[in-house]
């Protein structure tokens, strides 16, 4: 487990900085993706809560 956590930390460090050029278009796309996923995950959680209830 310790080795795995160390490996994860190493991966996080290795990929800390995005290599792609952060143009306004890229930033906007990533922002839209975050909003989309947030909405979708909220819907899934909502559905899950309804199912449990």
């Amino acid at each position: 487990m310790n080795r795995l956590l160390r490996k994860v930390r190493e991966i996080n460090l290795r990929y800390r900085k995005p290599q792609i050029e952060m143009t306004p278009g890229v930033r906007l796309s990533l922002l839209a993706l975050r909003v989309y996923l947030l909405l979708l995950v909220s819907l899934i959680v909502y559905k899950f809560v309804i199912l449990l209830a």
Partner: protein
Amino acid sequence: MNLFSRLYYGLRRVLKAIQLYLVIAGPGLVVMVADNDAGGITTYAATGAKYGYHLIWFLLILIPVAYYVQEMTVRLGAVTKRGHAEAIFEGFGAFWGWFSLIDLMLVDWLTLVTEFIGMTSALHIFGVPPWLTVAGVVALMGTIVLNGRYWTWEKISLLFCALNLIYIPGAFMVHPSLHDILRQGLVPNFPGGFNGDLFFFLMANIGTTIAPWMLFFQQSAVVDKGMLEKDIPWGKFDTLLGSTLTVAVAIFILVMTGTVLLGVDIDSASQAAEHLMKTDRYVGTFMAIGLFDAGLLGAICISLASSWAFGEIFGWAHSLNQNIKEAPWFYASYFFTLITAGAVVLIPGAPLVLITLFVQVIAVTLLPAALVFLILLLNDRKHMGDYCNGPIENVIGGLIVVSIVLLSTLYGVSVMFPGLFGSPA
């Protein structure tokens, strides 16, 4: 130069081109044919039974859609020599990387369960118990990968791809009317009007044509095969041939069920096979064999997609050209996903229907992200150089991505909330 000399040199050129293609052929064909997995066969069989030949035109539209999305992974893999998971980590950082990797692992595992459901139900028709199917499939897939050569794995997979063509003679055996197919199928139309039911079926067909694991699989396969920039044109041709074949197979399934089972409610491909057996024993048998093969091909590709992705990120040896001693973690993750997914099907009372629906919902969270990353990575001139997307490719790719994201999202939402669009889910 006389006529015979010209013919001779012409023939030699063609043979050389075929030889060259056979060396490069593989990733595009395998991924596209494997796209017709157990879930895909069920969707096409149900579409044919519900709408007959009327939606053939829609399937034909899916050829360029599948091609344009998948050919981008060929360029990305051949130029950067990195799999899709690694490309996302490097391009967008650890947050998006972990999101994609964990989501991929979940989607792949759940999809693998559905492949086992398809395979066990297909062989159940012939009296094979599920435990024997699961054990046989795990043993067969182990044998395929453990020989330590990508080439052997790929050629065996291509053999299973060829078996997927079994639906073509099956469609001819039910004696469909060519006139009806051309008249009803090739003219764009919405049978019964554009209602919730039809919308659900259109979305389901798109959902089965582009799956998130396909992007990860093809890019990793291109890298593992060692394709270079100069191989990109052949890689594109391979993808085009694969997307044409996959849609052709889907159309033949549609013709089979549209001819014999029109008006019958189909819940699964194995149910369609049982119905077809009542009409023609051989056609039903072909359907069942095709379903097993589809599940097997899907399982072969999906389990590899996850293992490649993990290997890329964790830095494990992750090539089919390495044996089990050289790449123990790669094979361990391969067998772990395979055995656990197979075991789920054997659990009495396991919520298999819920799992099947859940796959479609979870896939919707990964597909848009993977497609957006793909377009952005293909526009990264620093890494892609001359193979960067041009304006026309961006317009076509962008339109396709936006349409897929929109429709697959609506599909996922309609699966979660049946009745929202009047869907039958």
